[in-house]
């Protein structure tokens, strides 16, 4: 960003709630079923039917509000947002407008070692729309209403975010909280967590906001940063070229890496909001709020502190584990199953993260159980396998889901700790490389690594490294 300018960013995040049933009817919210198999007269907007509010959705919204330090409204209500689209069967979306369930909150994020507080303007409940599916070549479009009526929370931030990196950190923190609460699975690729960004730029020191553009279709964590970065540059260029930023909605095109204009302010819908007459206002008693407060889970910040104090992990490792609830659970369960905290942490942060990333999987989809991790670490500790072999073993475990013992047995990877066998290998290696032995003896000590490598190669990596080292030193003495 050019030093003269500063970005002002606010995010509107839609989170699909993990309720079993839809927000206004009893249909299942399961993802990926046969199109229109999870529908009923209420969620497809038949004449004369009426919505009935799912209490679980209210509870989830309150939970989230408490976690984000919001004021929970004792009186709130739904409103209708009116617009025509085939995926919106009633011709209006039941949402909240004037009186949302949660307001005036904030969350804290860490950016480059500094704590930043980002305000939460409001959290409100609404129903999701269905999905339009367009036939590639034919004249038809199809409508799948399985998603219509799935409960959403819209979490609106204050325009407190100042950089694409902060936006990404904010999204990560939001996801962590939602997952800690078990109210949303936080999957941006599948659309259970969605992000629209309001972006504007202004001169440093200027008080008023610049004209903003709303970015839509940011469908992965990676793109949060990229899309905003692009948009800031675009707006600065417009201003530098003497132009004006216009208020509009822009679409992030991830393939091209650009944002493109979708509709201007003039083309914006007039949603004609008015209070939903089919639902009575929601009254929340303090007692309920207190009960929910008392049952809140441990959050990542608390967890991180605990990982440092309870397990003696370095701050950095504690950070990486605590940010995600599934990772934290995996870590603690593996420790409980006998793993040394430091080793378990390294295994998760190192090899397991690498394998999952290569597979584009999250920790929720990890194929290995905590005990399997602990068992493998035990094999290293008791000398059954070497650290080097462990990598191979672990990859195989990840691929097949088999236990470490089984993999080691099947592949014959047990470490050679028989002194006679290792000595034989060492002798052979030294005999084959007389020149190097001479050089070593002449003072080129760096060649020790070479000899170890030769022995390992000969034993297919199975020789106990410590014993190899000791024997080599003795023989070359």
């Amino acid at each position, binding site marked *: 960003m050019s030093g003269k300018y500063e970005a002002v960013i606010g995010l509107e995040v839609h989170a699909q709630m993990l309720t079993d049933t839809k927000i206004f009817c009893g249909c299942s919210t399961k993802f990926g079923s046969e199109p229109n198999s999870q529908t009923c*007269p209420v969620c*497809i*907007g*038949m*004449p*004369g*039917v*009426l*919505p*009935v*509010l799912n209490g679980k959705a209210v509870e989830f919204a309150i939970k989230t509000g408490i976690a984000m330090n919001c004021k929970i409204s004792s009186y709130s209500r739904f409103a*209708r947002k*009116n617009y*025509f689209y*085939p995926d919106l*069967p*009633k*011709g*209006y979306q039941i949402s909240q407008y004037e009186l949302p369930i949660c307001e005036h909150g904030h969350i804290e994020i860490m950016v480059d070692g500094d704590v930043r507080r980002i305000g939460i303007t409001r959290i409100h409940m609404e129903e999701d729309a269905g999905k339009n599916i367009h036939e590639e070549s034919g004249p038809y479009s199809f*409508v799948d209403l399985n998603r219509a009526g799935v409960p959403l929370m819209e979490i609106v931030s204050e325009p407190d975010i100042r950089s694409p990196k902060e936006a990404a950190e904010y999204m990560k923190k939001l996801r962590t909280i939602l997952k800690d609460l078990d109210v949303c699975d936080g999957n941006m690729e599948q659309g259970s967590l969605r992000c629209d960004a309001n972006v504007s730029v202004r001169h440093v020191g200027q008080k008023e906001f610049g004209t903003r553009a709303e970015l839509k279709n940011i469908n992965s964590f990676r793109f949060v940063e990229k899309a905003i970065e692009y948009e800031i540059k675009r707006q600065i260029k417009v201003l530098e070229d003497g132009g004006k930023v216009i208020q509009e909605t822009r679409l992030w095109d991830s393939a091209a890496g650009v944002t493109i204009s979708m509709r201007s302010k003039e083309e914006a819908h*007039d949603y*004609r*909001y*008015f209070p939903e*007459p*089919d*639902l*009575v206002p929601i009254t929340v008693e303090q007692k309920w709020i207190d009960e929910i407060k008392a049952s809140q889970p441990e959050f990542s910040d608390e967890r991180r502190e605990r990982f440092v104090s309870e397990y003696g992990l370095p701050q950095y490792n504690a950070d990486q584990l605590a940010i995600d609830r599934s990772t934290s659970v995996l870590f603690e369960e593996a420790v409980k199953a006998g793993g040394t905290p430091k080793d378990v942490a390294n295994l998760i942060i190192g090899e397991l993260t690498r394998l999952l990333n290569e597979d584009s999987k999250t920790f929720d989809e990890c194929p290995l159980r905590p005990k399997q991790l602990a068992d493998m670490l035990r094999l290293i500790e008791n000398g059954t396998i070497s650290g080097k072999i462990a990598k191979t073993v672990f990859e195989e475990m990840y691929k097949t889901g088999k236990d470490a013992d089984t993999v080691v047995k099947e592949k014959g990877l047990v470490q050679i700790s028989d002194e006679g066998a290792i000595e034989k290998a060492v002798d052979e290696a030294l005999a084959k490389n007389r020149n190097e032995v001479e050089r070593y003896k002449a003072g080129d000590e760096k060649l020790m690594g070479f000899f170890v490598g030769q022995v390992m190669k000969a034993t297919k990596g199975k020789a106990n490294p410590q014993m190899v080292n000791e024997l080599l030193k003795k023989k070359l003495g």
Partner: protein
Amino acid sequence: MLNAIGRNTLKLNELTVSELRRLLDNRGIKPQEVLDDVYNRIDAVEDKVKAYITITKDSAYEMAKDAEQAILSNKQSLLTGIPVAVKDNMCTKGISTTCASKMLHNFKPPYESTVTARLKEQEYILIGKTNLDEFAMGSSTENSGFHTTRNPWDPERVPGGSSGGSAAAVAADECIAALGSDTGGSIRQPAALCGVVGLKPTYGRVSRYGLVAFASSLDQIGPITKNVMDSAIMLNAVAGHDPLDSTSAPAEVPDFANFLGQDIKGLKIGIPKEYFIEGMDKYVDDAVRSAAKKLESLGAIPVEVSLPHTGYAVAAYYILATSEASSNLARYDGVKYGFRAQGGKDLLEIYMNARSQGFGAEVKRRIMLGTYALSAGYYDAYYKKGQQVRTLIKQDFDNAFKEADVIVTPTSPTPAFKVGEKSTDPLQMYLSDIFTISVNLAGVPAISIPCGFTKNNLPIGLQMIGRHFDEGLILKAAYAYEQSTEWHTRRPAL
């Protein structure tokens, strides 16, 4: 069994719910015989009256078999074997539910409204679905997308509306009782114009689940019957909290029949001066004033009450009701069910074709009014102002009910008007509901009962308004009045 002569002279379709209950339970008659007389009557007069959109004769005789079995095994319920007509904006599973609109001409709901489900539990027999102004928007049934229903007292005249089909069917003895819906007077005004009893319960007393919405915060279902007793019986059958309708009240439902026959000595009846306006029909004015005198002679005490914001009710109503309607009717887009227009090059055209061809003029007018009232920049001046007026009107009633137990007014400023007389002047038509609209805005219950006739032999209706959930008291007052007069016994000479 009734003797042969008795059966031949007695037309069962002319009886009331309570009379038929007695005869059926005594096994003097069979449900099928009642049906025979009802359908014979329909065959004889329906050409003139045109009360029905759909007649469900086959399923009615099926239902009659079950009713007969229930009676023979002494397991009858409140309405076992009683033929009832239902306004065609209440969903009946597998049976055409059109709202008198081309938009839903082919719509058969895969679900049952709560009211008809409750009637079914009471083993009623559905005779057919009655005509209305399209989507219940109108005061004459002239806005029906199919045909205009005629007033059985004078087929040149309208039956009122929007529940004109139900009121005419009851008045013409084409059924025993009927259900209507009332958003601004749509049960009471046609009941008045057809000389029958129409009750709009408290908002929330009867479930709206399955009632095709016109204005959700005002709509309420209620009975149209030949007398007050039947009104109480029908209300008993349909009232009560419904988990499928969040706006239905968890209030306790008394047996409304228990209120009937109690004397009304000391009952304070309020007569609001704002309801006796210039331009009101002289016969209506006279009839309502003498009805008040009659109540006084029965021991009621007249008190003066004022409903000062009455003059703003029609304006507020036409903002709020149309605003809600504009949203409620958005689902009719030609995509999922109902009418789909041919052609259309893109999505917008598909929508526009379906909605311009599927809806009638009055429905379109109200959608446009409501869309306008909710638009950005106009919301405060219209919708919000309308809500504020609504609050004032509620307060008017709260204050009046500190003085009076029941408020007595005319139901309609005029008796039945001629077909075509007001249909070209929407504002005149809207004023037909000037005395009924405030009741919906306030959410209170009100009943219309016959209280006289004009010199042209057209019925006049008396409206009695009660406190929230105090249907019992207005039924009691209405019954006392009815029992001391003979208006309700008169029948049109069709």
